[in-house]
């Protein structure tokens, strides 16, 4: 599945200012792995022991993946995977 992973401003220092990365993957986890393969520094910044860090939110088509299957959430062709900081609001 070809999906687009949207990179938040705070991480673009790693992607050379790219604000999105087009990758293949059947799940959110696979899509992120494909992004890490291109930008290894991203892995440590948003994951810890194979899971997302606690202040990282990931959305597929606007829905928080924790309300679906986390990193195992399936993605389909053309989906947008959005990484956003979880420290806003209130």
């Amino acid at each position, binding site marked *: 599945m070809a999906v687009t992973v949207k990179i*938040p*401003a*705070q*991480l673009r*220092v790693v992607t050379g200012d790219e604000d999105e990365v087009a990758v293949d993957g059947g799940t959110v986890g696979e899509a992120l792995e494909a992004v890490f393969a291109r930008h290894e520094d991203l892995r440590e*910044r*948003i994951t810890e022991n194979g899971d997302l*860090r*606690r*202040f*990282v*939110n990931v*959305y597929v088509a*606007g829905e*928080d993946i*924790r*309300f679906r299957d986390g990193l195992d959430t399936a993605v389909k062709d053309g989906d947008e995977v*959005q990484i*956003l*900081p*979880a*420290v*806003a*609001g*209130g």
Partner: protein
Amino acid sequence: MGLESLRCKECGADYPLDASYVCEQCFGPLEVAYDLGGLDAGETKRKIQAGSRGIWRYSDFLPFTEHPPAGRSPLEPGLTPLVRADRLAERLGLREVWVKNDAANPTHSFKDRVVAVAIAKARELGFETVACASTGNLANAVAAHAAAAGLDSYVLVPADLEEQKLLATAIYGTTLVGVHGTYDDVNRLCTQLSEARGWAFVNVNLRPYYADGSKTLAYETVEQLGWSLPDRVVCPIASGSLFTKLGRGFEEWRELGLVDGELPAFNGAQATGCDPVAEAFGAGQQTCRPRQGPDTIAKSLAIGNPADGPYALDLARHTGGAVDSVTDDEIRAGIRLLAETTGVFTETAGGVTTAVLAKLAERGDISADERVVLYITGEGLKTLDATRELFEMHEIDPSLEDFEHVVEQDRAAASGTVS
């Protein structure tokens, strides 16, 4: 003495003091790091006492190099009443309860504190437009302070907010945007917008500064208690920012020697219809499971994904407090209890806080010698619908006889109830 940097709460990385809020290394939240080492306690105390009648008297502890900041709006919040509530204490079988009535602020909630700080910072950083994601009280405050400061503003809220909160926002001439969705949806949108627009989102890219405005509630409490600490505080939790910054405020003054004693026990209050922090507390977890589809009359607390959840849990635990939640019926009863015993009419969030105090008292969690402070963060007139069914009006013709009948009915009703 002064400001050091923006510092990551998770990994300690330092960043310049600009409009940012997220650590690039680990995605943790940034907060303002102060160097308070050069402050002399006696001199600081005198300076505070000689200061303005509002939050700027504490400007040594706020994120500015200029004291008070030049860009502050003319609406100065703070120094709200702290009133001893003996009738409330008696009703609950407690010895000493104080009500910090923060509805007595320019737009009738504690949000004036954080917004006053954020707007002054926005102007210092050169922003011309301010914005926010809000559950209502923040919307009122941003719209009003932006108007007073002459800045453009955009206020984004869930479209199904209480009418009073929408009206009391739009009147200030802001651009009010009702989003179809929950607060968490609004928050996500604002997080995206804060990248796309060069605006100051007070609770997104200015959040580190904004949050520090809440510390002033702790400072005022200490000052109004004659430079002493309460034994316990009961405070509502939405994102957990107010709760944790209240803790920080007390800690800073203890470290500086402005006040002696232990940190109070911190009791957090949530509504059962949206209680991710209370749930995590009860389950012994370090982080909160986000809540989808909040369902409570306490809309100002309906944040399903609380940014400061882990820190609120930590504070409640290490001070010997707790985080509890209460039902909508308990919230209505809480609003009524506070009004009947103190003359303070609070919105639903204050009903949550009062109901949690009642719950703690009933559970025997509060010992006989404790001094408790209850934080009432918003005004009852903002959520009138919540109280609509609690009362009946006696309608009469203008005759003495009819009136006598009302008095008889009233006495009969009073003698039939225990309270």
